């Protein structure tokens, strides 16, 4: 498959771009919910619109009422989400959770609400300040026909608004993924506002009882499921970061054309031109890496795993460069809350951290290559 968009994909991009620029715009979504101190950090009305547009069903099978598309298409929507800093449960719910539900009996319970843009899901993996899924300590102990979950999670994005939380825990059989309902007894959820105005959660599981039905995939088979889920989420986050970087760069290039100092547009200064051109180059490469990773995921290729880490790392570094150059080139105005460029810097930081930062993924790539 060629590494550019097919006609159908280009149409999806155009649709998503127009929709997100209009309905998902910074003033209409991010600033609105931030400034009202919204406890969810996103608008449910927009989430419903995601459902109406069909975005929520991109990864779901047609037989289940979805569009039966792939990760490339998810990435197309996520790039527009990123470009507009649109706060929404899309990445975790429509990508990570839908990937988790694939082939699971639980999809009857949760998929319809997700497709409708009504249900919100969360993914509880991290237990410390850094993403370390290879060192999950939370316990899942057998009790009767089910399990009791004990431990703590943090950085659970949208965890405070989620109807269902996918939780990774260690059973005797090994790592296992559970779908836990929000009102489960013994589950304490503390919503935490993050730098980008999104809401993460810290969760305490104090002997939370769940049925065996709540197991996603096999008992002890969590590594495989979580691998798929994280692969989808990381590739998606890479695309969202490519979008964040693109939005930051577009605003910055525009500013370079408009802002005058010393009697000329600052974009005429060669030092800034070269830095902007270098950023463009990095961004093109990061986008190619993200699409490649998604194609490999869609093909079910064994090479997908490594490429996802390449994409997440490259997108992280590139988006970091884009927001740093963006703020610096905007000068003083870039430091003000009134201007949007600073919001890109905040969002980039959260997305880079999510599901492993660039250093984590570069190290992971090294380990996958045996060094």
């Amino acid at each position: 498959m060629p590494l550019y968009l097919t006609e159908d994909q280009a149409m999806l991009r155009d649709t998503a771009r127009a929709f997100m620029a209009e309905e998902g715009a910074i003033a209409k979504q991010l600033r609105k919910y931030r400034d009202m101190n919204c406890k969810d950090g996103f608008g449910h009305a927009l989430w419903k619109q995601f459902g109406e547009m069909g975005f929520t069903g991109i990864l779901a099978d047609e037989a289940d009422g979805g569009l039966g598309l792939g990760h490339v298409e998810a990435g197309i929507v996520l790039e527009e989400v990123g470009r507009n800093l649109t706060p929404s449960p899309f990445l975790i719910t429509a990508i990570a959770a839908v990937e988790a539900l694939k082939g699971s009996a639980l999809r009857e319970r949760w998929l319809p609400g997700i497709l409708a843009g009504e249900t919100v899901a969360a993914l509880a993996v991290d237990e410390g300040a850094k993403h370390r899924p290879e060192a999950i300590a939370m316990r899942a102990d057998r009790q009767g026909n089910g399990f009791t979950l004990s431990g703590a999670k943090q950085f659970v994005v949208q965890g405070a608004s989620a109807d269902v939380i996918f939780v990774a825990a260690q059973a005797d059989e090994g790592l296992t993924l559970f779908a836990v309902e929000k009102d489960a007894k013994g589950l304490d959820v503390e919503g935490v506002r993050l730098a980008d105005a999104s809401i993460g959660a810290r969760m305490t599981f104090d002997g939370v009882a769940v049925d065996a039905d709540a197991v996603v995939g096999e008992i002890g088979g969590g590594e495989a499921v979580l691998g798929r889920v994280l692969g989808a989420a990381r590739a998606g986050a890479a695309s969202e970061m490519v979008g964040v970087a693109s939005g930051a760069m577009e605003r910055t290039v525009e500013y370079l054309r408009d802002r005058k100092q010393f009697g000329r547009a600052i974009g005429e200064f060669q030092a800034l031109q070269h830095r902007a051109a270098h950023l463009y180059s990095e961004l093109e490469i990061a986008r190619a890496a993200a699409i490649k990773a998604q194609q490999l995921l869609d093909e079910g290729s064994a090479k997908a795993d490594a490429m996802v880490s390449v994409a997440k790392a490259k997108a992280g570094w590139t988006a970091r460069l884009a927001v740093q150059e963006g703020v610096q080139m905007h000068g003083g105005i870039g430091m003000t809350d009134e201007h949007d460029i600073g919001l890109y810097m905040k969002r980039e930081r959260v997305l880079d951290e999510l599901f492993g930062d660039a250093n984590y993924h570069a190290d992971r790539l090294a380990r996958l290559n045996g060094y």
Partner: protein
Amino acid sequence: MSDLDTFRAETRAWLEANCPAEMRLPMEGEGDAVWGGRNPEFKSPQQKQWLDAMAARGWTVPDWPREYGGGGLSPEETKILRQEMARIGARSPLYSFGISMLGPALLKYGSEEQKLRFLPEIARGEIRWCQGYSEPGAGSDLASLQTKCEDKGDHWLVNGQKVWTSYADKADWIFCLVRTDPAAPKHKGISFLLFDMASPGVSTKPILLISGYSPFCETFFDDVKVPKDQIVGELNKGWDVAKYLLGHEREMISGMGLGGGGESLGAALKKRLADDPLLRAEVARFDVDALAFRAMSEKFIDELKAGQAHPAQPSMMKYAGTELNKARSELLMAAGGADALEWESERSKGGRTPREWLRTKANSIEGGTSEIQLGIIAKHILQLPGA
């Protein structure tokens, strides 16, 4: 015992006796700084006690002459005082743009009357000053400023707007650049003017920053009348004063690049680095850069004192120091991970780490951008053509 040894012993004893215990604790944040002014805010009686004790000896400005409220100390004595204060962790008794910025300019360019009028109250922290340089259309291109200052015979009439005025909403007086000759080439028609922020026609509006703080204001001048004797230096030669002051500010900022005492960042982050080999590598590189820069800072200060520093060297220090400071904050964010993303929680002290991280982004913009500094180095040190 040499005179300096005697001075050291006496200073040590005086500090032991007069610096309150609370004033020897590290500051918890900008809120702990004492800024003085007409309506000074003291968070504790000890803050006032410490300021008064130091001001009485002229030691808020130890190296200024005694007749202007200073301590009249020699450079060697000043250094000893600072060392002895550092030894017991004594806080600076007074934070003041009057001391760090206006004072040196007045000492060099002010009339005798101006020195006697303004310097002692600066030294005692009685008047809080703010700086009015930048304007919305004049950022890096500072000299393109437009604030108009007309000669109305018995007074000046000021109209215009400033931006990035630090704490303008809390300041008593402003020192600022105004255009007194609109017909002259842009560097030639500027004067350096002082006036009371309580003058009719002055208004301020805080600017909300990405960190969520508002240390800066927009400041508006609408037919502000200013007495004729409040220009510093010659009329239309304010650019000389401004350049002198900017150089001084850069030296000050480049000193700040020393931040955190220059100890190993990796040693402080040890636990977070154990299973993050790439971050450890970044921190190790940073530590090399930071410790090398600490040597540079020491060298720069020594050369400055000896009059051996290149006049444009502060630009290099400002550039390198602020870029380093930003890099440090990036590493603290990376090591902090999800913890460092929390913006409001008590656990995170109201998001101190991420807010300080965002604050550092201004380091390479304020006081002349990194690009401006590189241009100065290219032109004045490397003598490249057309720079």
